[in-house]
């Protein structure tokens, strides 16, 4: 049986598989599409990162030195959009493509052609978005949150391109999410019940439902902005009976679940890595699953905590304060479970584990500032200050991005068949860890001292801390070039990786050879 399958694979390969660029353009293979997603997201990470460098260079000292305020606003806007929709989300979809079939013992994703399409529309979305920067009047300059009426009446014509690119990104995400759901529901190997699925599969499964629920809401918000600007509607214009705050309600009804879309898969990654390097089973698997569900459910009930200063009725403020505080309970459960997993384990400190442990600590610090932000009266002071910038970068950079790096180091041997350079990996980790804290920790202080976010120039009392932050930013940016070096080195060669390079790792992905052949699990494995 297995030889027959092998022959068929080879046959398929020799006669139909195109080579060169068309191989990648027409591929329907989950591993190849996963690699495309991952490389694309890394390129976007560098593009968005260079915009952050422009921002930090301008903010290095008071006064306007390098860019004018209008261009500065384009940089903050496009940096946010590129990092959220171009770097973090596609990285997670790439990991899902590579790992979900390998983890549940499926031969491929359930809908391979749609998989191809959902990737290949993304580069066009970002070409449109980035291209708009070169228009007369520049690209979008209203923040990634595109609040009306700044994005409608008062925006430039690049808004139309912005809306179009957001639509394409949304379609891509929805198709990716459908694929994950259909794959997980239908293609699990015999014996792989829901409560036996690895946490990464579980968290992605929940994330996919969140995506399907909220991406259409983002599409609505973007379309209403488009019609308000070009077709005379007044959804967000009081002069025509609309309300600008309505936009914020719609946006954040998307935006808050989106935050969890960008962190739940991280939880899954860390829940795979910490047990592997503690050589001990994940503590409280079922409570992890329930906590994931609880976080996802609550994420629909807390959106207006982004809007405490918009003038909501006091009753609504109280409701959203309580609901937001409640989220820290399931999130706390997760952190406690990871610590309990490490407790009395047999811990070793390879690069994936280093990133995963840094994730736990730094994400928790981001969670603490999140809890502080939930306290509505205090939020009146924190809101739209650098405290918020510090908060969400702790969650997204030292949270989501660190977990993606941990995942890359953890599975690189499986993807490439080579061990990465452990020394370089550790160098990358320590440089990133130190610089990310120099970059984001002092932001808490300037925020508390009263520095608003999204300003190109600032008062003199903020100068010292901004300089430290900028040094941290340049160092963090440069540290990522080490990562690029590690990746290239590992793809091109290195020590041969065994099928299971990590002593304590568990899961079906370690039962296939390294590198994982193009087709795996054509005969489903038996899960006991």
């Amino acid at each position, binding site marked *: 049986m297995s030889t027959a399958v092998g022959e068929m694979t080879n046959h398929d390969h020799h006669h139909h598989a195109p080579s060169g660029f068309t191989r990648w353009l027409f591929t329907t293979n989950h591993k190849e599409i996963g690699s495309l997603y991952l490389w694309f997201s890394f390129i976007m990470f560098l593009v968005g990162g260079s915009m952050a460098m422009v921002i930090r260079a301008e903010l290095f000292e*008071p*006064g*306007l*030195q390098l860019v004018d*305020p*209008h261009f500065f*606003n384009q940089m903050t806007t496009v940096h946010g959009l590129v990092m959220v929709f171009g770097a973090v989300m596609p990285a997670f979809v790439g990991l899902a493509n590579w790992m979900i079939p390998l983890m549940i013992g499926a031969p491929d994703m359930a809908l391979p052609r749609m998989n191809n399409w959902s990737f290949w529309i993304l580069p066009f979305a970002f070409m449109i978005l980035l291209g708009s920067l070169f228009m007369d009047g520049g690209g979008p300059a*209203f923040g990634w949150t595109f609040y009306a*009426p*700044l994005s409608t*009446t008062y925006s*430039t*014509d690049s808004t139309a391109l912005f809306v179009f690119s957001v639509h394409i990104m949304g379609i891509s995400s929805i198709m990716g999410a459908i694929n994950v759901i259909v794959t997980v529901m239908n293609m699990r190997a015999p014996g792989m019940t829901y409560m036996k699925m690895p946490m990464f599969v579980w968290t992605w499964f929940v994330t996919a439902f969140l995506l399907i629920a909220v991406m259409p809401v983002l599409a609505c918000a973007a379309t209403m902005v488009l019609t308000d600007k070009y077709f005379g509607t007044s959804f967000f214009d009081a002069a025509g009976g609309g309300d*600008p*705050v309505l936009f914020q309600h719609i946006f954040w009804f998307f935006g808050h679940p989106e935050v969890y879309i960008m962190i739940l898969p991280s939880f899954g990654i860390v829940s795979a890595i910490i047990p592997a390097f*503690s*050589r*001990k089973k994940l503590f*409280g698997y*079922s409570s992890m699953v329930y906590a994931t569900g609880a976080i996802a459910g609550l994420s629909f009930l807390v959106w207006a905590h982004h809007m405490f*200063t*918009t*003038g909501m009725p*006091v009753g609504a403020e*109280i409701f959203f*304060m309580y609901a937001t*505080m409640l989220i820290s*309970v399931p999130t*706390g459960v997760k952190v*406690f479970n990871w*610590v309990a997993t*490490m*407790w*009395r*384990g*047999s*811990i*070793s400190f390879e690069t994936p584990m280093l990133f995963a*442990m840094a994730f*736990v*600590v*730094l994400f*928790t*610090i981001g969670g*603490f500032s999140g*809890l*502080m932000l939930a306290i509505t*009266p*205090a939020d009146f*002071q924190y*809101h*739209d200050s650098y405290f918020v910038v510090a908060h969400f970068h702790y969650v997204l950079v030292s949270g989501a991005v660190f977990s993606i790096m941990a995942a890359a180091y953890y599975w690189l041997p499986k993807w490439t068949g080579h061990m990465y350079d452990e020394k370089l990996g550790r160098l990358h980790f320590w440089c990133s860890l130190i610089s990310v804290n120099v970059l984001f920790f002092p932001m808490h202080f300037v925020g*508390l*001292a*009263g520095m*608003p976010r*999204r300003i190109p*120039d*600032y008062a*003199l009392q903020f100068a010292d801390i901004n300089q430290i932050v900028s040094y941290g930013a340049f160092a963090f940016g440069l540290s990522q070039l080490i990562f690029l070096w590690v990746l290239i080195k590992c793809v091109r060669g290195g020590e041969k990786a065994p099928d299971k390079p990590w002593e304590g790792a568990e899961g079906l992905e370690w039962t296939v050879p390294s590198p994982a052949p193009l087709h795996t699990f054509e005969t489903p494995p038996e899960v006991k």
Partner: protein
Amino acid sequence: MSIRLISALIAVAPFAASAQSQLNMTQGVSEISQRVYDLHMTIFYICCVIGLIVFGIMFASMILHRKSKGHQPATFHENVKVEIIWTAIPFIILVGMAIPATKTLIAMEDTSESDVTIIVTGSQWKWHYKYFDRDVEYYSLLATPQEQINNRLQKGENYLLEVDRPLVIPTDRKVRFLVTSDDVIHSWWVPDFAIKKDANPGFINEIWTKVEQPGIYRGQCAELCGKDHGFMPIVVIAKEPEEFAAWLDEQEALALEAKAEEQRLLALSMSKDELMSLGESVYLGNCAACHQPNGEGIPGVFPSLKGTDMILNDRAAHIDIVVNGKRGTAMQAFGSQLSLRELAAVITYERNAWGNNTGDLVQAADVNEFLNR
């Protein structure tokens, strides 16, 4: 690794205790701002304690239970009792935190029985203040010179936090602010009062403060509102109630005088030199942020005024757009912001600067016709 972080957190605590720190939230100058500060510190300390415990256990595990020391892994992987405890304890802490937070929030949102009401209106990129039931209203613009922003002059002590006409409020009185906007969303933030309220176009938000000490308090717009979002500061001077009353009376008298002066000026003509020099200063203060000092605007964002059809060929349309603005664009109605003299001067300037040599002079009386349309 994160011992450094934790020690950084602890190192902040002494700063946090001192009153006016550059690293922590201000305690402010009202009872409410003090309560907000207390809530902030309480939740901060709660987070520190939880952090110390959780990270402490994690680090202990990293030190004690490492493979290189030959530690053998245990096999436990669940414990219902422990899991219930660490779900319940955070919940109880949260309830304890929610009670004072709710009380403060309700007090902050109670704008009833105020003594003074001031209407605060944001527009790109300045604040307008109007004393309710009084004939006093004015715009408050950034006072920092462009040369300081462009690094050609030494920056002053209150760089970017200074305005030409600060808002004046009384101490020991409940002052209510009605906050709204003329164009995009702005946000009126004075940290010392613990006030931050969005200015939404077409809607009015309410907020209040009762300042305890006289002084000068500075803040900034907190909601991204376009190109010069970073350049619309707020300065509030709090005066003793009697001093405030005298100030307000004086301003009202000055405003009446200025109105009478306007009427008198209608009959007079200004010379071209006079118009051009006043016009240039008005232009740089009010128009150059968008149309740029050289009149060329920013392509695709703000139109050029240099050699354009309207300016060269349609005098009436030019006066009209300056006085009444253009709906649906960032072009504001300057008729309500500038005096007739200033309007006449700036229009004359635009019609004769940057090679626009129309030779036209626009006088206060010409502008007045459009103002009353």
